[in-house]
């Protein structure tokens, strides 16, 4: 009987990340920017997506970006029903799982086989904890923080903010009624992720939605430029 210590020193999620890299590369070659939207439940992910679709649909057809949405929830297809009038959408029902993983996303993506648009938006399960650890093959991770949640949240969920590239502050139409400081939330989030882009908006009255859409289009142009260099 012999005993042998095998040194591995490898992250348990390394394999899943390699799969995510492959998905990311394939989507970049198609010219599709993949966005992973994270937030707590009810922060306004679906409303933001509906406002985005409405904003773009007001443009003349040749300047109108196309997007599809994959939406994750524990139960029901309520979000898919809300978005279906605007965009191609697939509901991923996790049956109780607290986050999405790439195999679920890839399966939902395959059911959108004829979609070859500019933006694939993944609406994650409402949760600021577990989704932060799982790479879905996105090019851009966007975290939403709504004014009703409080401006002290970034420091409480450091991984979600550290792994995001942009912070959307939503429901800012409620600022006159709730004690929320955009400056305090920005400072708290940027202590964790100094490079975070901050996009304040209200999906309800439309303020800031144009800037958000321009940000997305800018990120897609950067992706295309990076991809043509390699």
């Amino acid at each position, binding site marked *: 009987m*012999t*005993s042998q210590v095998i040194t*591995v020193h490898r992250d*348990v*999620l390394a394999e*899943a990340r390699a799969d995510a890299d492959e998905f990311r590369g394939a989507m970049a070659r198609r010219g599709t920017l993949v966005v992973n939207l994270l937030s707590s439940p009810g922060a306004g992910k679906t409303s933001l997506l509906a406002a985005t679709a409405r904003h773009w649909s007001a443009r003349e057809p040749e300047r109108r970006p196309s997007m599809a949405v994959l939406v994750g929830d524990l139960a029901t297809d309520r979000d898919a029903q809300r978005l279906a009038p605007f965009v191609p959408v697939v509901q991923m029902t996790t049956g109780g799982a*607290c986050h999405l993983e790439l195999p679920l996303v890839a399966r939902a993506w395959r059911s959108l086989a004829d979609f070859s648009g500019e933006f694939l938006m993944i609406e994650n399960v409402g949760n600021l904890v*577990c989704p932060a*650890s799982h790479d879905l093959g996105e090019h851009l991770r966007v975290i939403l923080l709504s004014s009703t949640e409080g401006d002290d949240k970034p420091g409480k969920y450091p991984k979600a903010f550290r792994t995001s590239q942009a912070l959307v502050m939503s429901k800012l139409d409620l600022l006159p009624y709730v004690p929320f400081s955009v400056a305090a939330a920005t400072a708290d989030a940027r202590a964790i992720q100094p490079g975070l882009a901050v996009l304040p908006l209200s999906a309800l009255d439309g303020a800031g939605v144009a800037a958000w859409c321009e940000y997305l289009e800018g990120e897609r142009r950067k992706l295309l430029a990076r991809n043509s260099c390699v």
Partner: protein
Amino acid sequence: MHEHSLVQALLRQVERLAAQHGASRVDEVRVRLGPLSNVEPLFVESAFQTLSPATAAAESRLVIEEVPLTARCAVCDSEFEIIRFQFRCPACDSAEIAVTAGDGFVLESVTLRREEPALDRV
């Protein structure tokens, strides 16, 4: 709580290592995690107890090492611990830093046991 799915991925890797090395059993599985791992050690332990009996890691001991969150500065090259999730270099205040430990769920090592070939019977 996603510890269950992380431990499933961990056990898949342990089983593959055991098979590759022709091990008859796994004595120890050593993992490392830290403040930005988003993993609760107690939940990892309980997921391991639930899931490992059906695998090559049945009867193995899980050792969880908790390490601090550390980073290296790309500007001044100093290495430091990140306190209270303030992601800036304490030496030069740069934000160009790379986390070096404490943000993952890392399989450090496995201790495998192998039956020696019974030479006297060959």
